[in-house]
């Protein structure tokens, strides 16, 4: 019995999906596309098995369904980081690009979610801070930021600005560089306006409380408060509640997300 070509062609057609978040690579003259939201995939079953020998061996890759989504997510992250670095390289000083490369490695290690990688990521983060100072740390924070639907500050603010500058002055790379570097310096100077709760001991918490109230008094509302790991998140929540008691005209919004294997939270204090 021959192969059911009509059925094969049918699903091949279906699988040729295009998405703006696709990751594209060439392996042995063939292109592989991983879709960020889901793998373009056919689940392996007995029918597939019958076809596998004749058709799939040279045309398809095989992957485990339980790790596919995470692979896709990580590939997307790595890919977008590389694209970012490539796109920003002509417009940023070498030190900032160095910090960006180191920060993207930290992010990738954190996202591997195993203890050895976590240890390495912490060491690398400490090195990054030592080598590039607070500027390097801010670049890492920006790469880790979540502004809108999982997009970072780079994707949602910096890259669109660069694209716009390039469109405005398509023949003058020096002008683009001048405009963009001033913009990037400004972003770094004013980011983060957030307050980080990274130490749950009472003295440190009191300092954070005073800083938040200070920002509110100076009318720098909304104030964002970030915390990572359960202990710090609980501490941050308590501080925010104390602030709300002192200033009832304000209200709190809370957004939880994950950073590597840690749970993280962003509290935003806004006017009612």
């Amino acid at each position, binding site marked *: 019995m021959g192969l059911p070509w009509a059925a094969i062609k049918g699903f*091949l057609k279906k699988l*040729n*999906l*295009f998405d*703006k978040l*696709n*990751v*594209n*690579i*060439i*392996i*042995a003259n063939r*292109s*592989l*596309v*991983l879709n960020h939201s889901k*793998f*373009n*995939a*056919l*689940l*392996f079953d007995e029918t*597939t*098995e019958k076809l*596998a*020998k004749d058709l799939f*061996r*040279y*045309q*398809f*890759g*095989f*992957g*485990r*369904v*339980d*790790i*596919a989504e*995470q*692979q896709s*997510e*990580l*590939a997307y992250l*790595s*890919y977008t*980081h590389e*694209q*970012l670095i490539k796109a920003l390289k*002509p417009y940023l000083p070498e030190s900032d690009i160095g910090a960006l490369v180191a920060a993207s490695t930290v992010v*990738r290690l954190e*996202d*591997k979610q*195993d203890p050895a990688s976590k240890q390495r990521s912490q060491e690398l983060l400490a090195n990054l801070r030592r080598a590039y100072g607070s500027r390097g740390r801010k670049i890492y924070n920006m790469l880790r930021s979540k502004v809108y639907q999982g997009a970072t500050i780079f*994707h949602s603010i910096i*890259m*669109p600005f660069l*694209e716009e500058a*390039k469109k405005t002055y*398509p023949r003058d*790379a020096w002008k683009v560089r001048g405009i963009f570097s001033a913009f990037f310096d400004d972003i770094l100077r004013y980011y983060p306006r957030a307050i980080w709760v990274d130490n749950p001991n009472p003295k440190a918490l009191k300092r954070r409380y005073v800083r938040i109230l200070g920002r509110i008094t100076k009318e720098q509302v909304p104030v964002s408060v970030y915390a990572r790991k359960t202990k710090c998140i609980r501490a941050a929540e308590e501080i925010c509640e104390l602030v709300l008691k002192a200033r009832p005209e304000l209200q709190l919004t809370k957004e939880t997300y994950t950073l590597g294997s840690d749970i993280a939270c962003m509290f935003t204090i806004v006017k009612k």
Partner: protein
Amino acid sequence: MVNHEPNLITGPLKSKDEMRRLESTNMVLFRKEDVDRVLSALEIPAQGDLILDTAGEPAVCHTCGCDIGKSNLGNIMPGSRLFFCDNPACLATYIAQTKT
């Protein structure tokens, strides 16, 4: 001169040429318990838990170099010669490094 290539970060794909560049080869996904069936369908030999490559040597992960067994097999790439373990970062690293 700065290269002003269209990028895939900030916007949707626009031109038909860009669409054409993204021809896809696909992944057939399998459940962990179906490893034996996948291996036999692809005629990939195994010795106990260990998977063997075309030279009869134990297959290793292309990225991290660990031995690939039935229990930690993550991916087999088209051509059945390239293997990845079940650490999601391994395939992802390969993809990031070999992207066009």
